[in-house]
């Protein structure tokens, strides 16, 4: 058997975030989160719902990369035209995404970097659905390059997603749906289980130290009961390979390193 790659370890870690979520839409944006959600559905959590990325609900997760258009088999229909009514605003979704910035409160930014609202220095996508996603349903994150440029030392430049920042909470608002779960990176897995939802490290990938993670993070991290991030077994690896026949996962993390450092 070939060595397990770090990307495959991350996919396996992402899949754990979707365990015991119930009958909700699992949305993984990008190859690693999407493969993680698909792996979860095919192994421990068949109740998960997911789309083909377009408008159809599928019970067999759709492999990523080039394929025939008709390859996906639709079991249900969830177009954008119903997405807020059915998935987002009812809280029946868990999204795993990769914002440009994330701060110590779990606030995220996808809109712009630097400058002002009227004249940003670097325009990005726009807030998309982040404000609604983060106030209504669980969210997790994946970052292929753990760095202080992403995990910023101050607050994010434009708060596009709700975090646990008390200063941002308009009195009388209902924040009961705010539920930030896992942060999977190329170095570790973190959650929001620290004091007042502070971010803490809960597992380190093989060979990674806490100090190394802290060094690559712009704000102080708490320590959970840190374990070594588990490696996927043969069955999980086979499923991952079948869901990613073009090996797109090899291009996600720089130089596609092995899960265990040499």
């Amino acid at each position, binding site marked *: 058997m070939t060595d397990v790659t770090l990307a495959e370890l991350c996919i396996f870690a992402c899949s754990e975030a979707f365990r015991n979520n119930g009958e909700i839409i699992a949305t993984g944006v990008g190859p690693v989160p999407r493969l993680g959600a698909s792996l979860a559905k095919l192994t421990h959590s068949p109740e998960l719902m997911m789309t083909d990325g377009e*408008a159809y609900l599928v019970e067999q997760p759709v492999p990523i990369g080039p394929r025939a258009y008709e390859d996906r088999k639709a079991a249900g229909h969830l177009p954008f035209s119903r997405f807020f009514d059915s998935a987002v605003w009812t809280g029946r979704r868990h999204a795993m995404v990769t914002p440009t910035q994330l701060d110590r409160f779990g606030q995220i930014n996808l809109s712009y970097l630097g400058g002002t609202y009227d004249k940003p220095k670097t325009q990005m996508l726009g807030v998309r659905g982040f404000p609604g996603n983060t106030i209504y349903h669980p969210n997790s994150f994946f970052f292929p390059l753990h760095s202080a440029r992403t995990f910023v030392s101050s607050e994010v430049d434009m708060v596009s997603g709700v975090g646990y920042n008390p200063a941002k909470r308009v009195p009388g608002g209902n924040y009961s749906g705010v539920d930030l779960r896992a942060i999977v990176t190329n170095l570790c897995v973190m959650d929001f289980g620290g004091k007042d939802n502070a971010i803490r490290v809960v597992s380190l990938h093989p060979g990674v130290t806490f100090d190394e993670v802290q060094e690559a993070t712009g704000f102080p991290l708490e320590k959970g009961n840190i374990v070594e991030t588990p490696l996927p077994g043969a069955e999980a690896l086979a499923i991952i390979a079948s869901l990613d026949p073009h090996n797109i996962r090899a291009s996600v993390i720089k130089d596609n390193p092995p899960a265990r450092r040499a």
Partner: protein
Amino acid sequence: MKVSEMKTVTLDKRMSARDIVSSMRDGMTVGIGGWGPRRKPMALVREILRSDLKDLTVVAYGGADVGMLCAAGKVKKLVFAFVSLDAIPLEPWFRKARETGQIEVLELDEGMFQWGLKAAAFGLPFLPTRVGLGTDLAELGGLKTVQSPYEDAETLVAMPALKLDVALIHANRSDWRGNVHLFGPDSYYDEWFAKAAAKTYVSCEELVDRMEDHYPDQAHYNVFERCFVSGVVHMPCGAHPSSMPPAYGWDMKAFKAYGDAAREPGDWSAVADRFVGATEEAYLESIGGKEAVAALPLPIF
């Protein structure tokens, strides 16, 4: 003689693209249907680009429609949640307009956006939502809050109605009276653009005189009713370079050339002719005609 065989008076909402654009005024608020690089009324957008129309407030789930209108200096203000071409995530011409401070914006969450269209459709000043609380959206966009008058007394964002003077939509099929059929896998929020607008103009791939004579068994494709349609125009390939499922996919090669032009030469006036054309016929010819568009594969996600 049966009524159906008698020659009776019928509605006819057919217009030319030029008539549609001529009916619009500087400073209007224009909603554009579709989603990112999907089923955009690009032929009507190109007709705006060929006109003198200016100072528009554009309301859209943005793709190249927004990028082109920004690049050509047609946009005074943009109401948006994103502007993206999917495989080219950051729309290059939109980015340029933003980074030079050329346009005013109201940035919204995708869900709030459709909520604002619904408020306009129902004639309400606003609709309440939790979305926006805890983010910078409300403060930056000047959105106000309201308090529930009931026991819960919850504080909510009052999403203002996004009232449109005009909505532009590209449909698979229509008849002369504006009975529209949308038969892709997703109608996005076109229905609500149509209902939020004082006037909605629909371009279509196929135009028939009387829908019931041609497709009487397909009425479930009529996503919104013809009272929300003011004019129709037959514009085959009218979504190009965006996608028009199931007829054709998006033209990523065309998007790439368009995106590259934002860097080099970086000047819209130097390339507008390439991406807009003097006429729609000339544009279609320049991209290889209807056959080339029909051959574009549907995108894989």
